[in-house]
């Protein structure tokens, strides 16, 4: 005779939902995307940047990419602090954008002069790191 055991509740360890060590680390980092991106760059960097190289065969695109790279001031290192940099850097930019009109190139350029902002934006388009190493 085995009566139904209704009140039992199987235990559940929430950590199981985080698949592996690295992922657990990611979960603990508020800047989890940094880790994801790092992983991705490590695994897929060369293959991904090849798309840029392909596009570079087209002279006008190459010019465009070079302009963009110069404009942003290529970043050096990837750094988990960068996201914070990005935040503060761009909030300066948002001030200009707070007013309805579009920012002028010079206004944007001025905010870009701060090293922190530059670093932040570089993080924002971290792929630029890839371009940097190719061009």
């Amino acid at each position, binding site marked *: 005779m085995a009566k*139904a055991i*209704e009140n*039992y509740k199987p235990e559940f360890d929430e950590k199981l939902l985080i698949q592996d060590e690295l992922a657990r680390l990611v979960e603990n980092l508020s800047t989890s995307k940094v880790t*994801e991106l790092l992983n991705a760059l490590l695994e897929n960097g060369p293959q*991904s940047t090849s798309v840029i190289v392909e596009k570079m065969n087209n002279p*006008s695109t190459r010019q465009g990419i070079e302009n963009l790279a110069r404009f942003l001031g290529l970043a050096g290192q990837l750094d988990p602090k960068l996201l914070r940099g990005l*935040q503060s850097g761009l909030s300066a930019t948002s001030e200009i954008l707070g007013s309805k009109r579009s920012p002028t190139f010079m206004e944007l350029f001025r905010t870009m002069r701060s090293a922190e902002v530059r670093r932040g934006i570089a993080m924002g388009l971290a792929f630029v790191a890839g371009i940097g190493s190719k061009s």
Partner: protein
Amino acid sequence: MEYGQEISITINGIEATCRVGELLIDVVNRYKQTLPQICYNEVLGPIRTCDTCFVEVDSKLVRACDSRVSHAMAVLSDSPSAKAAQIEAISRVLHNHDLYCTLCENNNGNCVIHNTISASGIKHPKYEFEAKPYEIDASHPFYRYDPSQCILCGRCVEACQDLQVNETLSIDWSLERPRVIWDDGVLAGESSCVGCGHCVTVCPCNALIEKSMLGEAGFLSGLPSSLTTPMIALTKAAEPATGIQSVMAISEMESRLRGSQIKKTKTVCTYCGVGCSFEVWTKGRKILKVEPSDGPTNAVSTCVKGKFGWDYINSKERLTTPLIRDGEGFRETSWDEAISYIARRMREIKGEAGADALGFISSSKCTNEESYLMQKLARAVVGTNNIDNCSRYCQSPATMGLWRTVGIGGDSGSVTDIEAAGLVIIIGSNTAESHPVIATRIKRSHKLKGQRLIVADLRRHEMAERADIFLHPKPGTDLVWLSGVTRYIYENNLADQEFLTSKVENLENYIASLEPFDLETTSNITGISKETLIEVANEIVSAKGVVICWAMGVTQHNGGSDTSTAISNLLLITGNYGKPGCGSYPLRGHNNVQGASDFGSMPAMMPGYEKLSDPVVVAKWERQWGVDLPKTAGLDNHEMVDAIHSGSLKALYLIGEDMGLVDANINHVQSAFEKLELFVVQDIFFSKTAQFADVILPASPSLEKEGTFTNTERRIQRLYQALEPLGESRPDWKIITSIGNALGANWSYGSPEEIMDEASRCAEIFVGVTYGALEGFSSLQWPVKPDGSDTPVLFLDGFAFPSGKAQLYPLEFIEPSEVTDDEFDLHVNNGRLLEHFHEGNMTYKSQGISSRTPGTFLEVSPELAKERNLSDGSVVRLTSRRGAVKVSVLISDRVQGREVYLPMNSQSNESAINALTSSHTDRATHTPAYKELAVKMEVLSAKGKSPLPKNNFRNGVRNPQMGVLVESKWERSDYVEPSQPRKDGGL
């Protein structure tokens, strides 16, 4: 020139072979000529809204998706004027869509807008992006709509109106800035939207996107707008210097990086028997989305369960360690202890009472390989044929009807055959809710292609509403009207004589058995008028191909096998077998209910439906397995329950089935469980049934393992592993292998592929099945010949009997096992709901589903409500001769008179339909007669809260129209074709 005639045309000077009538855009694509195209999608067909596909044909500009090959035409997609029109159209698209690809969750390499713009080489769009004056609509639990990103291509509308045919979406072309609207302009989350996800799947950009993708896909997505707004502005500011192609290049690089962030795994839906297949996108254990594209059955289609109902995989209610009964509770244990305990007890019970004291129940949720192993464990290791699966609860009578008449118990053809039929008859199936993607194909053919539709059902459900003829026979009398119509057809010389003469046997006996079914008697018994019966007969004989689909409304009766047989008889009399676009289609309920039986989990059949009663068959399997096999047929599920009560069955090993809730007359079943000496339950959740177990083994669901499922079309499809098994859980095939080995089996299966290889070596109908042939989205429909060729349409070369001829099978009508009387005065019908699968143990884990459908309810007709003074939310007790339930009332004109409907999505005894149902069964197969049920009703409280929340789709009001109505766009005064610049501020 004749339609379909082969012809040569030139495209950009290249010679192209095509057929008259073919869509030009298809030819251009086949010859890989670059041509922008956004709204065109092969599954949806031409929509003609985006204007990007303009080509020059004989010096005239036309849309390639709106032109058909008519003569030896000269087509130019790259002439200056064609190019100019394409660039103009793309610029107009970019007026409606802000390009911020690197920040966008849709930038995954398959964004149609991104790829079109990239391929077009456009440097500077002519028009600036301008946001639309509407808020983002995030009211739907599963997706959100951003009007400002919407390019008004109408793909979503086409999908909703003409593919899913839920008819919720339209574009309001009368607005100054048109947008997509739900119903007549309500929020998505308060509309008639059933959440099938078609619209989201086909949207070419991020205007409609799964909420589960937001902030997850991409490295820069999910940033606060305080960051993204300036980033976008910066990129734009740089654009005059850089051009948009460089920005596209950067975002393409980012999208490739996402390759390591997001894993895409092909899998097969684990809910119903339609067998939709798709990719599931995961990031760690997070399920980002389901992306249907190339499924052989479903293409871009899904229903809400397959598209969005996956939360159960990561539910905190998952079992993650083996549990063993210990006093008043369970304790966690190791696999070693659990397995050796089970093996020891099985040996002891076998020693004391013989092998037939053990029973095995396999699951239609598990893979073919697992079903095969389970029956092998029972037969070859333990030595009993007491093996069955839950198709006993639903599908066996349909299979029986087909075995009797045509010799193979499976759908005659594919879903494409249902789609192509001239007439579809649906009997006892609410296809739109139970087999949603098959319903889409019927609804589409009915709406667009003139297909006729007859529905016979007790409820006026969606398919009934759409039908050309709706029959409401008295409960349990389908056999009678089917036989009456067949007799009328034969007597009036409307039968297919040639087919009968050359392909069918036993005509005389059969015709004699139709004697009692004259129109008069038929009409009296069924309540269907003679005129209607004649009308049905005429529809059948005048249709080009008749398909009959049926489900539980037919099978779950004491005459379930007979009615299924009557369906097949009718198809034979009218010659509707053995060619495409016709035949019989029992709609299989679970994802692998077909495969569970196919691979031998049946008491009298070996894998491949090879008969245990045939000594040659048994000898073959004995050689294959190297053991002596038990020769007498075992017990089916139903008999096992009785055998437990009588004391002859003492141990039960049950996989993936909440039998304590889904079998009929659950009080009887649950009290049987209490008597078992060993009860092993293998599941992913602590189910009602598991509460009775001695040992509970944690299994892994489909996303955590490999294997194959077989859908209702006999289609075998592979699933690949997307995630690691959660905690200590294990795939069922591994667990069964461990138990087998603990009992001395000495199995060494390293993968499901090895199991399939073994099964296909021996079972004739699978002989050509290999994993290699099932790679990716490839599939095989059994029987599969040694050379690997499969059988999409059955009976092309005759029927599966020694004579090659079909057998008409005489029948008589038997009264239902339970009918209403003065005391039990209400007839209870029961079945599924669209959004919950079965009793709901998987779908309730989805917050999005359960928030809108939190529980079951009782559908009561307006007449009955008036008579008993009921309103929405009244609480009533229904009492049958076996038990009682307490449920809330929902008044609905889907039911009539004294017929009520209680969906089975309940997880507690208090409202579970099977507390009411009886132990009566189909005479031939022991499938419970769930649908023969009389109750009395007691009102417990007249007032209460409606059991159906206001935002449930059943409360929405559809807005049917033919597609996107592009003509309304063209009629606007501010629209000009893109051969000219757009009017200032115009579309």
